[in-house]
């Protein structure tokens, strides 16, 4: 009880300090007087009595100080003092403060921005009920991990599983939406009622699906997205009950999902994650995998299945159970096993590594910023040496000085943190825009309390980190030495230089590592962009188009549609050639299978696009041997195929392959003659060339094709005209995307480009900070050596000598830093390896280039102070002693 009371009184003691202070002065004064009185009474002279009383009392100030410590709460008072002193110090040297706050702001801001993204994507739990128990069902096949399962498997799990409290499945496809406005291509999600329940979906108006609506043959109902609701129905309640046609099939709108509600999916692009229409998943578990699905097109019905484990059930247990249920369904001779992964891990799995990589990289930059500010503080500490010595002489203990210096540095860091927060606010949007194609964003990326906490934590830690070494050093100053030493005398002790030099070396090393990483990514990107695609990408317009099978049921109908579409596009002014293909390079997806070769046992893995006769001309893919397709290669004529060079090399090494016969997995089972060989084409910058066989589209209908047109001018300018022409063929069959091939190419490279630019900007930041650091140290050493340099000049040293003296020392530090940086980069080489393509992470040219860049930057940073040193007037330098 008593201690509590005492603390309370002491807290009160923080107030009315002035009065208590005076009171105690009076008390001490009375004390002194009584002592003197006693002395006089004992026969001393008044002067002697006063002298003895004073000696006996000790230092009045010290007594007062210890009294003060007891009166209030010294920690709080000291902190308040330190803070106000710190603010004053900051105000007194605005240049230093601005430099430190800016440096820290850049470092902390960039770190916070990256952390904001990391937090939203990797750390923050999914915004669904009991998100930690959600698992995604994958299947491990002999060929690798599959991320989908079949309706039959899903139905079996649904029926038999005891470990799952709920299972849900979803899939999506592009579809044509008609009714209540013009025809429009949308993303249509097909989901089980349980899936929406799993996500805790609450409609804005209306209701979600009921389980009985899942079954095939149930009433056709649909949910629509918030944006579709606004777009097509003006956001009115009247939307409920309206009819929409999805690929020709009618659905009644029963509800609207909230804005921003989307299914997190790692395997689809950002655009593909915004479903506009949601229909219940009415599948027939016993139908074959390739079936006519709800949406109306024949497609592989591949489900993505998610489940919620019952409380207390471990993932291993659940996995074992689902696997047991799966086994009876696995075809003989094949292996297939269930792999359960945490859903959050699954969603963010594609970016986890690169995000952590960037967080680490930006952490390096933050370290560089810290080192810089530590150096700044060291320079200032040298100037404040006498101030600190005086304070110590006046009775401040070392811990007290240390605390004050640390308070100052933390104050700087917090100011830097505030600046950083402002930076992060914009920076994170920039970052998201940058990485948007790579991020599986489920929830908004924003600065929330946790991020604020992170920033504050980073600021405090950095404040302590960069403040500690300088504070330790200057608080340990030997009193007498620095009081005696005139402020600008001679050369400072070697240990001080040692620490500063070490900091510069560390800084250069860190910045080197980031720059090497950036260099590798940059070179990798250049190589990737320069990769020969095998076709001419400029002046090429593409449009992807799915036909609704309800309107175009037979291959013949489909073929007729696309032939007309190609003719229409060829008629657009400015179009030179037009064609179609169902598997466009850079188109985003492609199916492969195996091809048999007549008279051989082994088969070849191939891709098998179907093309119109002019396709190669449109794409400028060279014909190497034989002939291309002709209009005569149509239905009824003998079926023929073309192969690419890779196929020819792979299947018929050293032979002429013309006239040989092959059979493909997806084509009726007939032997087809090879009539020509064409050049290799790459499917994407990161992809290897694959063996391909081309079918004539006229001999094999497809419901999905890319239309391609070679244009005379800018292809993007013709997009509108192409859309109009296609609407003339069938206004209810709009294309999905009309894009130039260059745009597709840019999209293909975008993730790599974003990574590269991001790391390059980090490295640039590191370079600038590092250069400032070198400049600071060199110019500090020049200012401390004015006298010495003055003497040298007076004794006849040339300007060149002075420059090489100063620059030589600086460059030595840079060189040491570079060596350390190269060693560090080599040590981290496995980490960088995950981020680069086409080059090894020890690419000597990159290392040499980066080292050269740093040498030049170091040279520039040293040269400026060196030049200043040459302009020293020896007389002035000597006189200022």
């Amino acid at each position, binding site marked *: 009880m008593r201690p509590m*009371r*005492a603390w309370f009184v002491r807290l009160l003691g923080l107030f009315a300090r002035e009065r208590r202070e005076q009171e105690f002065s009076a008390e001490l004064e*009375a*004390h002194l007087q*009584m002592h003197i*009185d006693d002395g006089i009474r004992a026969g001393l002279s008044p002067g002697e009595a006063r002298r003895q009383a004073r000696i006996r009392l*000790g230092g009045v100030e010290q*007594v007062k100080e210890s009294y003060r410590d007891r*009166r209030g709460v010294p920690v709080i008072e000291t902190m308040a003092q330190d803070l106000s002193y710190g603010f004053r110090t900051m105000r007194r040297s605005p240049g230093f403060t601005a430099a430190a706050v800016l440096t820290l702001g850049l470092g902390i801001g960039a770190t916070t921005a990256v952390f904001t993204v990391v937090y939203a994507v990797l750390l923050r739990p999914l915004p669904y009920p009991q998100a930690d128990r959600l698992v995604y069902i994958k299947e491990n096949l002999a060929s690798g991990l599959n991320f989908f399962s079949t309706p039959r498997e899903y139905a079996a799990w649904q029926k038999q599983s005891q470990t799952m409290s709920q299972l849900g499945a979803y899939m999506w496809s592009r579809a044509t939406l008609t009714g209540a406005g013009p025809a429009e291509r949308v993303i249509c999600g097909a989901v089980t009622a349980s899936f929406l329940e799993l996500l805790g979906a609450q409609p804005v108006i209306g209701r979600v699906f009921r389980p009985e609506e899942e079954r095939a043959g149930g009433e056709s109902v649909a949910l629509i997205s918030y944006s579709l609701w606004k777009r097509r129905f003006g956001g009115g309640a009247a939307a409920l009950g309206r009819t929409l046609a999805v690929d020709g099939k009618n659905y009644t709108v029963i509800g609207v999902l909230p804005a921003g509600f989307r299914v997190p999916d790692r395997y689809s692009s950002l655009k593909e994650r915004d479903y506009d229409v949601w229909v219940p998943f009415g599948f027939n578990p016993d139908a074959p995998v390739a079936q006519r699905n709800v949406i109306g097109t024949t497609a592989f019905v591949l489900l993505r299945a998610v489940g919620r484990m019952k409380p207390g059930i471990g993932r291993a247990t659940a996995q074992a159970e689902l696997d047991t249920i799966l086994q009876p369904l696995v075809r003989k001779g094949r292996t297939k096993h269930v792999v359960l992964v945490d859903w959050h891990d699954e969603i963010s799995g594609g970016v986890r590594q690169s995000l952590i990589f960037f967080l680490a990289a930006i952490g390096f930059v933050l370290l560089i910023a810290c080192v810089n500010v530590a150096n700044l503080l060291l320079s200032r500490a040298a100037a404040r040496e006498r101030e600190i010595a005086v304070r110590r002489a006046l009775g401040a203990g070392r811990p007290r000085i240390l605390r004050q210096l640390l308070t100052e540095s933390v104050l700087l860091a917090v100011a830097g943190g505030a600046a950083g927060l402002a930076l992060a606010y914009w920076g994170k949007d920039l970052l998201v825009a940058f990485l948007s194609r790579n991020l599986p964003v489920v929830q908004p990326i924003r600065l929330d309390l946790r991020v604020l906490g992170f920033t504050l934590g980073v600021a405090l830690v950095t404040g302590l980190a960069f403040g500690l070494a300088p504070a330790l050093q200057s608080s340990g100053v030997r009193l007498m030495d620095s009081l005696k030493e005139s402020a600008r005398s001679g050369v400072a002790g070697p240990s001080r230089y040692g620490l500063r030099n070490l900091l510069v070396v560390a800084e250069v090393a860190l910045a080197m590592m980031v720059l090497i990483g950036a260099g590798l990514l940059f070179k990798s990107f250049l190589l990737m962009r320069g990769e020969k695609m095998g076709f001419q990408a400029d002046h090429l317009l593409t449009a992807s188009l799915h036909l609704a099978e309800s309107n175009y049921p037979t291959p013949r109908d489909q073929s007729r549609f696309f032939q007309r579409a190609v003719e229409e596009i060829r008629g657009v002014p400015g179009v030179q050639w037009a064609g179609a293909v169902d598997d466009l390079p850079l188109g985003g997806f492609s199916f492969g299978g195996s091809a048999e070769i007549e008279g051989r046992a082994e088969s070849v893995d191939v891709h098998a696009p179907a093309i119109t006769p002019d396709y190669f001309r449109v794409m400028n893919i060279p014909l190497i041997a034989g002939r291309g397709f002709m209009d005569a290669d149509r239905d009824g004529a003998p079926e023929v195929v073309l192969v690419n060079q890779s196929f020819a090399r792979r299947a018929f090494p050293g032979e002429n392959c013309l006239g040989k016969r092959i059979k493909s997995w997806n084509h009726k089972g007939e032997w087809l003659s090879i009539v020509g060989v064409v050049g290799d084409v790459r499917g994407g910058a990161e992809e290897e060339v694959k063996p391909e066989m081309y079918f004539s589209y006229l001999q094999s209908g497809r419901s999905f094709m890319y239309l391609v047109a070679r244009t005379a001018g800018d292809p993007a300018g013709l997009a509108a005209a192409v859309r109009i022409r296609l609407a003339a063929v069938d206004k209810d069959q709009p294309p999905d995307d009309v894009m130039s091939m260059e745009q597709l190419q840019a999209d293909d490279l975008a993730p790599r480009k974003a990574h590269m630019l991001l790391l390059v900007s980090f490295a640039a930041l590191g370079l600038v900070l590092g250069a400032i650091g070198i400049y600071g140290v060199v110019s500090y050493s020049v200012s401390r050596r004015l006298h010495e340099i003055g003497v040298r000049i007076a004794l006849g040293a040339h300007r060149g000598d002075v420059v090489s003296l100063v620059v030589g020392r600086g460059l030595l530090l840079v060189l040491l830093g570079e060596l350390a940086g190269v060693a560090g980069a080599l040590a981290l080489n496995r980490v960088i390896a995950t981020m680069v393509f086409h080059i090894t992470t020890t690419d000597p040219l990159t290392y040499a280039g980066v080292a050269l860049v740093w040498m030049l930057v170091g040279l520039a940073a040293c040269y400026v102070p060196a030049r200043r040193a040459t302009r020293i007037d020896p007389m002035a330098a000597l006189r200022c002693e």
Partner: protein
Amino acid sequence: MPEKADVWQGTLALMVLKTLEVIGPLHGYGIARRIEQTSGDLLSVNYGTLYPALLKLEQEGYISAEWGLSDNNRKARFYRLTAAGRKQLVKQAREWEQTTSILDRFLSAAKGTS
């Protein structure tokens, strides 16, 4: 002397309380003199320790303070024992006696065996 301050703190409080009990209200200087006299001038009270100790006792509510006049008409701050202080004195004195008697016994026993 300042090095001994820590050792002093606990016993100093007890001495202050006892002094105030015996003499009645007294100022800081008087308390110091009285302690020094009682110890037969073996002790020297450090004022840098005394005043914080007085403040601590005051904060804990064992003593109270008010301004008054000293014998030779000087204005001084007089400390007075409170009821809580009296209880505390009894308690501390008992604890102290116990400690010293244990130490006594320990020291004499140790002497006996060596």
